[in-house]
């Protein structure tokens, strides 16, 4: 009885088109926001912030990026890792060329580079579709990875071949580098991720988002209705790569602190893909859920399994984690193939009719 539409009348289309038309949803979101902005900062340990929350948010952003392309525009991509890398390397270059630039500006600007590269590799999508398109994005993945190794200019000719993030300040507060407080970094990542999510949700609900979904659901019909495949697909590639680029930059600047090219390897692409699919293609909330599932669950298992009193070796924990995660992926897909977001939605639908079994 708690979760009901009844009695909530919308009198304007604005209200009807709001992100969270239901009061209960709005309350839920407010609670989550309070948790994220107040409770976590007040209570969390450094480990929780650096190893759980910050990467979770970064991955959520990357998953949203991929979701734009794969979930909303229907173009399968396996090149996310490389696009994240482009963001990271361009942010790195930007900071070394403009050492005094505001770091947030640099981050947001770096996304444009990955967007440009994304568009270039998106061009073949006009002809190549479905799984076959995966090859284009794989080509991007491996070619870019090779560039990260082979173009020393990208990493300022470091002997180590890696990019290392030095200390930067913003308004007198250290935001990057080892001296930055995990809390500061968490806040920046949280704001950027939430802000960009809001932008994306706007896009999705408007004309551009609808064009993406049209192309996804039936590209021929979309074209017959007047969607230009070129603009629709490339804009999806651009927005997606932009988000991934920013996520990649944040990953290095606010989380890892240094990165070798192998940090942007294909395994990263897959990691993000898992999050996107498992969370639910075509759902922003799903991206958060997917990121939480794929990132937090293994960490939690690693922490929890030994503390349950199982005295198991570190690698056994790893084996178990891998098996449990794999089994859970399959389990969730079987329970609800359309991802955690859909599972959540169905639960809500059930709640609406509760205590009756069906509506």
């Amino acid at each position: 009885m708690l979760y009901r539409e009844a009695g909530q009348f919308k009198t304007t289309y604005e209200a009807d088109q709001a992100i969270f038309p239901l009061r209960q949803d709005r309350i839920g979101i407010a609670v989550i926001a309070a948790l994220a902005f107040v409770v976590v900062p007040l209570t969390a340990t450094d480990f929780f912030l650096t190893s759980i929350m910050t990467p979770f948010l970064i991955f959520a952003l990357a998953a949203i990026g991929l979701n734009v392309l794969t979930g909303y525009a229907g173009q399968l991509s396996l090149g996310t890792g490389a696009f994240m890398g482009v963001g990271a390397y361009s942010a790195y270059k930007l900071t070394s060329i403009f050492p005094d630039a505001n770091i947030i500006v640099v981050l947001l600007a770096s996304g444009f580079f990955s967007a440009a590269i994304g568009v270039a590799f998106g061009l073949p999508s006009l002809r190549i579709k479905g799984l076959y398109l995966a090859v284009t994005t794989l080509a991007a993945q491996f070619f870019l990875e090779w560039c990260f190794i082979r173009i020393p200019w990208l990493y300022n000719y470091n002997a180590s071949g890696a990019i290392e993030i030095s200390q930067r300040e913003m308004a007198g507060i250290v935001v990057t580098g080892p001296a930055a407080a995990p809390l500061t970094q968490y806040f920046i990542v949280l704001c950027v991720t939430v802000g960009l999510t809001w932008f994306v949700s706007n896009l999705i609900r408007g004309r551009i988002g609808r064009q993406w979904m049209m192309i996804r659901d039936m590209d021929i019909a979309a074209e017959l209705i007047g969607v230009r495949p070129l603009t629709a697909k490339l804009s999806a590639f651009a927005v997606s790569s932009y988000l991934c680029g920013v996520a990649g930059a944040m990953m290095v600047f606010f989380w890892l602190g240094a990165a070798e090219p192998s940090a942007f390897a294909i395994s990263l692409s897959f990691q993000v893909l898992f999050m996107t699919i498992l969370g639910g293609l075509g759902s922003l909330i799903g991206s958060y859920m997917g990121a939480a599932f794929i990132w937090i669950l293994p960490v939690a298992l690693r922490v929890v399994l030994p503390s349950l009193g199982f005295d198991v070796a570190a690698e056994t924990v790893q084996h178990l984690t891998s098996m449990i995660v794999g089994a859970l992926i399959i389990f969730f897909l079987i329970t609800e193939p359309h991802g955690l977001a859909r599972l959540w939605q169905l639960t809500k639908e059930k709640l609406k009719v509760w205590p009756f079994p069906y509506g």
Partner: protein
Amino acid sequence: MNVHVDTAAPAPTRSKGEVLLKIDNVSLYFGGVKAITNISFDIMKGEIRAIIGPNGAGKTSMLNVINGFYHPQVGTITWRGEVRRKMKPFEAASQGIARTFQNVALFKGMTTLDNIMSGRTLAMRRNFLWQLIRFGPALEEEIAHRRRVEEIIDFLEIEHIRKTPVGRLPYGLQKRVELGRALAMEPELLLLDEPMAGMNLEEKEDMSRFIVDVNEQFGTTIALIEHDMGVVMDLSDRVVVLDYGKKIADGAPDEVKSNQDVIDAYLGVAH
């Protein structure tokens, strides 16, 4: 019940006589398959033009030619007095040609509302940045179009499924949503490919009413493919009959109905 759709312009009267679309000597082949051979006919402004013929006669292919999905190997198409060359489908759409599909081609992952909104794509102007913040002009535009779409939803009596993903709808409603999507484009020429397949009588009557209303109220020209002879004979102004890719008859419903070739090839028994 009277559905009232307000349009800015008063309902234009049928101004027949002006040729909107002219097909000249068109032929279309797929490898060895001759889908269309040497067909000519025209569609006048404001009329309901039916295309009928046995299965595989080339009716759907004809529509595909008209809206640029197929490009005929031979022949010309004149649209509003201009000869069209290799027009892309989205260009046809932007010039006012809308259609529905024989095998429902809705956007399965989207709700009814979004599907119909998608018909408004071409009419929406606000650029990327406005879309991004979805505020001011962008929101106003969205709301304005939403209002138009709600009118169509009202008109088609599908209010109750506004927020349902179309994949879950029964077939008949899907067809109706598809019509709604085409209407949302406010087309000059509306191509309907078997809009009533899979409907029962009651629903066919409703659908007929919608089609006639669209034609009368908005002055939309309609090309209609349908296998229900009752519907075709009642609604259309002129009928063109295809068989094996060739035109075998063209004229008023009554003429066509009694044409022996048509009876042999298509109707079976005189209706």
